Each structure stands twice: as structure tokens, then as C-alpha cells.
């Protein structure tokens, strides 16, 4: 590769950027050139240094060494405002929108100077028509789906007329249908001579959409390739540095008793999106893995909290854990019934960021009678369990017993999963088991859950990663707008069928999906 002549001038170029965080070298002399009219992919596993590179390119972080070139001349972005002024727009994975305000108000907040909202709304409509981004200026952001919110962020960026648009893992929150629409928008943008930096770890879409791809691994530049000439497998090899193992699916064992039975589960919610649940029914039996697919913000978090006991429901019978009605039981009581829970958010929910890792063991084990007896914490037993988790689940970190915050996402996730598995639960409910986890750790986690199921544990997995669910679950149900479809055996369904159900009422033509309430300005 690399012998390609420098046809189009690069718009924004990173030259040998290096960034250290303490002992960790997040970016080690990484170079990347974004050219006008091109979609450039930035590929890499979690922790490969993609976010650090992007933050340096837009002024959120300052490089320790190396330089940025803008149209061939060196430039320094001391803060994001200065990069925006030069036409570099970023849409981050985590949106910065105010739920209580309308789309146009949110957009107004992000733009310099003052403009009447009506003028702005007209500009938004303009933008929407030109790029096929379905956004209604006067709707409240709190009512929007994640896909719609992303479009708001993109529109907000586009109103600044950027020459370079950076999209950080944009499709991770989209249905297949919404992703298609986004790709069309990206094509229009590059057609106008803008440059798009597309960050992703989904190889198929990178191969379809992007003209060039830069691969990072462990903070280092690995290669710049033409993704159209690569196979998904060869890209994966570049990303991971080894062959990617697939989780074997072996469901030869017989299924046992239902460990989780959810019947007519309803939750009123607080009016914000995804907080209400409507008539949820699902059964998970010993020995099987049931997956719940769906786009973020469709009630998965509410469902998890209801299952874990963080939110209680009035109907005691609507949740039955191992034959005991548990709707009104708290998390500790549900754990006593043999349930284990792994929430989506690792820091702050599954683990206390500023507490030592060994103390974090206590979060879910304090009621098991072994580590805490008569309200007194037995330190040696606790530390023994801690080391068992660390060894058994290959949790890596620096130091002897660091704060949870200091661990990488993958290692913390292995810790959190290990903490539950070693409790020997009869039921495990996992929300996003491999979100933001590198491929090796993700494979390990899936294999572990598979093994537990083979040993008679019932496993319920909530995930937005459809490929993951298709790979290692036995049955899949789809969540949309707080409702859950009946689970279907994996071999009887298809990507397309699930994608369709995931889209449910949203997509490009969704304006009439939830009738009331969006006239309020």
C-alpha cells in the first residue's frame, strides 16, 4: 500500500502525534491524513487510541509531540472552539444535548452569536432536506430516539459548515435501517467535497462506505489500507493482531426449569424516553441464553433495573426468580434467590470508580454469607475472593489493588462478570456484556457465559450488538418502545427480520409514531 500518489491535498493531517497519560502511551507517533471528498475510516479496538487521536485533532487534548497540519500548514488547536472555527466538526458517541429543550434551542446553544429561533429552524429544515436527515426543529430532545438525537448532533455540526466532519462510532446506536440512511448522508457530504472521518469497529460498513482506512492497535499506527480491497477477516487481523476466535455454540444439553419468568410486567415510567415498559413477557430456562436486541433507549435500562430490583414493581408475581415471586424484592434479596446482575455501565453502576477493586467485590457478594458475617467484613476472605476473580478471569491492572477507575474497560468488565460467575448464580442478567470491550476479552466473556449456561445457569443478555446476539444466544427477543417481542430461536430468524423489529416505529418515516406532545414548543 502507500504507493498511491498524493492525489487530493489533505485537509487535516496528524503527523506523528504522541500522547501519554502517566505510564500509558495512548498514541505513539500516530499519523493520519484526511482528504477532501473522502470518507476515511479510523479502525481499532477499544483502547487502541482512536478517541485520544480524535480529541487531539479537535483541540480537546494537546499532543505531547508531533503536529497537526491544516491544508499543509502547521496549526495548533488550543480548544475545541478554535478547531470548530477552522471547520472541524465532531459528533461524539455521547451526545451533549439538553433533554428539556427543543431541537432548535439545543442547536442555538451550540452556535456562536445570536440568531432568532425561527431563522435557525428554517436553516435546520434546509439542512434536513439537503442531507436527508429527518429532524423536526420544534420537538423536545427528551422525546427523541437515540438515532434522532444523533441526527440533531450532526445537523448542529453541519450548520457550522464544517470542512471536516468526525463521526465517533456513529452506527453503534443505530438500527440497520438508520445506519443505511446515515451512509447516504455521508455520501452526500463527501460529494460536496467535505471530508469525513468515520470511526468504527464494524468492518462490513467500513468496507462499504470508506475510501481509506487507518488501523490503530495498542496506540500505534498499524496500516493505512484501501478497505474495499480488504476482507473483513484481513481487517480484523490488522485490528486485533491475531485471528479472531468465534464463540462455539453448543446447545446439546437439555433445558431445565425456568429460572426467570416475567409475566405481564408493566412500568409506568416518568415520561422520558425508554422509561416505561409495556406488558413484557419472557421466560429464561436453566441452560439457555436468551438475548434481547434493540436500539439503545427503548426501555432496556428500565427493564434491567426492574429485573435487578433497583426499581420495584407493584405486581409481585410479574417477576418470578427460581419459582419465587420477586417483583417487590430488592437487589440483595434477589441475589439471595440465586440471581446475578451485570449492569451496562461499569463505572458508577456496576462498580464504584473511586473504591479499590477488592472493595468492589463486596457490591454483589455482601449478602452471600461468606465474606460478610454478622455485619463484619472478613478481609482475608474478601481478598481471597478478589484474587480468585482476578486470576480466574484474567483481570489485568497495575499495582496490587487499584481503584476501579484505573482499569481498562475490558478488564473491569471481566472483573464484573467474574464477580457474578463466582457466586454460582442460577440466573445471570447481563446488560451489554461486551460494550466497549476489546475482541479478545469479548470472546472470553461470551465463552464464559456459554459455559455457565452449559452448567445449568439461565442467562439473559441485553445487547445492542446484533452480531453478538446472533453468535452466542439460543433465542432472541427484540425490544422497541418499551415492548418486547416473543423470543425466536436464533436458527429460525435472520439479521433482517430482527433489524426490522428493532426499527419498530422509528426510522426515517417516524414523525407520527408518538402522536401527542410534540407541538409544545
Amino acid at each position, binding site marked *: 500500500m502507500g504507493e498511491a500518489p498524493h492525489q487530493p491535498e489533505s485537509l487535516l493531517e496528524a503527523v506523528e502525534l504522541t500522547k501519554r497519560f502517566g505510564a500509558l502511551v495512548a498514541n505513539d507517533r500516530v499519523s493520519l491524513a484526511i482528504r477532501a471528498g473522502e470518507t476515511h475510516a479510523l479502525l481499532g479496538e477499544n483502547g487502541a487510541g482512536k478517541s485520544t487521536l480524535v480529541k487531539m485533532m479537535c483541540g480537546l487534548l494537546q499532543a505531547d509531540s508531533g503536529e497537526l497540519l491544516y491544508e499543509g500548514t502547521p496549526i495548533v488547536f488550543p480548544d475545541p472552539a478554535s478547531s470548530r*472555527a477552522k471547520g472541524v466538526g465532531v459528533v461524539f458517541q455521547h451526545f451533549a444535548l439538553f433533554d428539556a429543550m427543543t431541537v432548535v434551542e439545543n442547536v442555538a446553544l451550540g452556535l456562536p452569536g445570536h440568531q432568532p429561533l425561527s431563522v435557525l429552524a428554517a436553516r435546520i429544515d434546509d439542512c434536513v432536506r439537503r442531507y436527508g436527515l429527518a429532524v423536526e426543529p420544534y420537538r423536545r430532545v427528551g422525546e427523541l430516539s437515540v438515532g434522532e438525537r444523533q441526527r440533531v448532533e450532526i445537523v448542529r455540526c453541519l450548520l457550522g459548515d464544517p470542512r471536516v466532519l468526525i463521526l465517533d462510532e456513529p452506527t453503534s446506536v443505530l438500527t440497520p435501517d438508520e445506519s443505511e440512511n446515515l451512509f447516504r448522508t455521508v455520501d452526500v457530504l463527501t460529494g460536496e467535497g467535505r471530508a469525513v472521518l468515520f470511526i468504527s469497529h464494524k468492518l462490513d460498513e467500513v468496507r462499504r462506505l470508506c475510501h481509506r482506512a487507518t488501523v490503530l492497535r495498542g496506540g500505534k499506527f498499524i496500516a493505512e489500507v484501501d478497505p474495499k480491497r480488504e476482507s473483513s477477516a484481513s481487517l480484523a487481523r490488522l485490528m486485533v493482531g491475531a485471528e479472531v476466535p468465534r464463540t462455539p455454540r453448543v446447545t446439546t444439553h437439555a433445558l431445565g426449569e425456568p429460572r426467570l419468568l416475567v409475566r405481564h410486567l408493566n412500568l409506568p415510567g416518568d415520561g422520558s424516553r425508554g422509561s416505561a415498559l409495556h406488558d413484557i413477557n419472557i421466560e429464561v430456562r436453566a441452560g439457555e441464553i436468551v438475548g434481547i436486541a434493540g436500539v439503545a433507549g427503548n426501555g432496556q435500562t428500565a427493564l434491567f433495573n426492574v429485573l435487578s430490583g433497583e426499581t420495584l414493581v407493584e405486581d409481585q408475581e410479574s417477576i418470578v426468580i427460581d419459582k419465587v415471586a420477586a417483583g417487590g424484592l430488592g437487589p440483595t434479596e434477589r441475589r439471595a434467590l440465586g440471581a446475578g446482575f451485570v449492569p451496562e455501565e461499569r463505572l458508577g453502576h456496576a462498580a464504584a470508580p473511586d473504591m479499590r477493586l477488592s472493595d468492589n467485590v463486596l457490591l454483589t457478594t455482601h*449478602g452471600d454469607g461468606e465474606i460478610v458475617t454478622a455485619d463484619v467484613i472478613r478481609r482475608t476472605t474478601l481478598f481471597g475472593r478478589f484474587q480468585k476473580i482476578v486470576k480466574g478471569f484474567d483481570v489485568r491492572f497495575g499495582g496490587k489493588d487499584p481503584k476501579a477507575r484505573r482499569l481498562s474497560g475490558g478488564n473491569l468488565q471481566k472483573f464484573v462478570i467474574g464477580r457474578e460467575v463466582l457466586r454460582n448464580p442460577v440466573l445471570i442478567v447481563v446488560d451489554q456484556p461486551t460494550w466497549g470491550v476489546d475482541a479478545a476479552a469479548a470472546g472470553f466473556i461470551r465463552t464464559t457465559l456459554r459455559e455457565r449456561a452449559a452448567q445449568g445457569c439461565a442467562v439473559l443478555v441485553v445487547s445492542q450488538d446484533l452480531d453478538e446476539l446472533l453468535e452466542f444466544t439460543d433465542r432472541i427477543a427484540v425490544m422497541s418502545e418499551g415492548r418486547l417481542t416473543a423470543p425466536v430461536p436464533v436458527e429460525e430468524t435472520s439479521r433482517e427480520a430482527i433489524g426490522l423489529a428493532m426499527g419498530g416505529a422509528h426510522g426515517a418515516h417516524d414523525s407520527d409514531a408518538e402522536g401527542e406532545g410534540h407541538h409544545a414548543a
Partner: protein
Amino acid sequence: MPLRLERQENISPLRHALAPLVALLVTLVVGAFMFVVLGHDPVRAFAIYFIDPLGDPYTLQELVVKAAPLLLIGVGLAFCYRANRWNIGAEGQYVAGAVLGSWLALATHGTEAGGWVLPAMLVLGAIGGALWGLIPAFLRVRFGSSEILTSLMLVYVAQLGLDYLVRGPWRDPQGFNFPQSVTFDDVALMPLLMGEGRLHAGIVIALLAVIVATFVLGRTLVGFSIELAGSAPRAAAFAGFDEKRVTYGVFAVSGALAGLAGIIEVAGPIGQLQPTISPGYGFTAIIAAMLGRLHPVGILIASLVLALTYIGGEAAQISMRLPFDVTRVFQGTLLIAILAADVLVRYRIRRVEGATHA
């Protein structure tokens, strides 16, 4: 030039431990500056404030007597602050405890009541403080009101209530119209530790509180749940710890210890109820808790340091004619310095170079 605070990921335990010492040093520098401005020789002032009291057996006793209430209250506050509940109203809980405990002393005054009176007074004092502390806890749990404001405002309610009682119904009829209650009977007074002198049994209670609190906070599930609720509320809910119970619990403990300190002070060094029964112990204890890193043993040391400012302040009033407010300034400076030191340990100040806004 714009400055920005940046969070530091790697904080060495040493820096964290040294922060209080740096804060003390800064306080001394600021104090020296203040003495110079007031026209005093700072070396002599410091000698009177901090050195002379340490050489005299009587003042050393007094030091311990003054440290005891700070210690009791500070240990209680550690429960609250670890749970990220900001009880600023220990002074009010102190008064409430003193009032409820004193009620029994006054009710049994002049009767043949036996040795049960003092223990019962201590229990009532703890209950009174706990109840007063549970009011802001209830308001926070039920209505989401800021416990910082409500607990602080309740201080003034308690103080005015006490004022009313000692000027009205509880005033000593033979007291020449002074606003104070009768002097408590012997059965209602804290026994002295060494027959004479100033050391009283309340000091033993305070030390017991340190031992128990060290164990509860460090070794039990209750202590862990408090720490977790303060450090990561959602993780605490996930772990199955009820946020409301933690709020009520820490306010009850902290109020009870403050109330206990109040009744010990009234039944000990003071011996009767009067309009002012505290030189601001409830507020100074906040500094003791912060300076002691919210650890009971640390608070023990911090209480002694702060008690020294009280003693030195009294000495300086006499020999240098410095107003008592100088002591307050010292204590306030110390609190600001310790809070600033904490921020500077966790964050680093960076200068943001010439921002170019379009």
C-alpha cells in the same frame, strides 16, 4: 489569563496525607500576616497561641476538655460526610441534645433520684440530637431539599429555643434574674476522672466513640454501605443499599453524637443550662472532621489542634487584648486551606494559553 483545573488520575497516598499539614502551614503564614497587620509581633503571638498552653498542666487538661466535644461531634460528622450528606447543623443538634438531657436534670432537681439520672440524661441527649438531625434527613428524603440549608437553619431554631427556655420556664427562681437554670444536682453531673481538676468522664466516652466508629466505618458492612453511598450512589443502589436508610442512619448517628456532646458539656464543665453553651463546637467540629480526613483517629488529632486554637485564643484575649474573633479567623482560614489543599491534591491548575475565539 484563563486558568483551568484538571483532574489528576494518579494521586499518591502521601500527597493526600500531607494535605492537612500543608493547610496548617498556610494557616500559620496567613496568621502571621494578620498579626503583623494588627500591629503585633507574630513570633510572640504564636508563642502565646500555640506554645505556651502546651507547657502548663492546667491548660493541657483544658485542651483535652475542649477537644472532647469537637471529637464526639467530628466523629459523627464523619459518618455524614463519608456518605456525601452535608450536615452543617451539628451545633443545633448539640443544643437539642443538651436541652432534652437537661430536662431530666431539672425534672429530678431536689428529689431523691439516684445514680440512674446521669445515664438517662446521656441517652436523652443522644436522642434529642438524633431527632434534631433527622429533620433535615426527612426533608431531604421526602422533598429533596438541601440538607446543607435545612440543617444550618435548624441551628438557629435550636439556639433560640434554648434561649427561650433559660429566660422563661427553666430560669432559676433564685438566680437574680440571670438567664440560667439551676445548677444540676450531683447525680446529674459528669464525674471527674481524677478526683479534682477538669478532666471528666465525657472524655472517656469520646475516646470510646473513636474506637467504635473506627471499627464500624472500617470493618463493617454498615460502614461500607455509607462509603459506597457517598462514593457512587447508583452502585450503592445496585448493591442493594437503600439510599434513604443511609441518609436517615448517618444523620441519626451524627445528631446523636452531637447531642451527646451537648449534654456532656452541660452536665460537665458548665453544670447548668445557660443561653450560650458552646463556643461554636458544632461548626469547629466540621473543620476537625475535614482536617482529620474523616477518619476517627485523624479527627482525634485534629480536635486537639483545634482545641489549641480555643485555648490560645483565650490566652491571647487576656495577654494581648486580641478579640476572640481572631480565633474564629484562624479556624476559618484552616478550613479554607484544607479545602483548597484537597482540591490542589486532586486537581492541577493549568494555564490555558491565549484562546482564539472566532
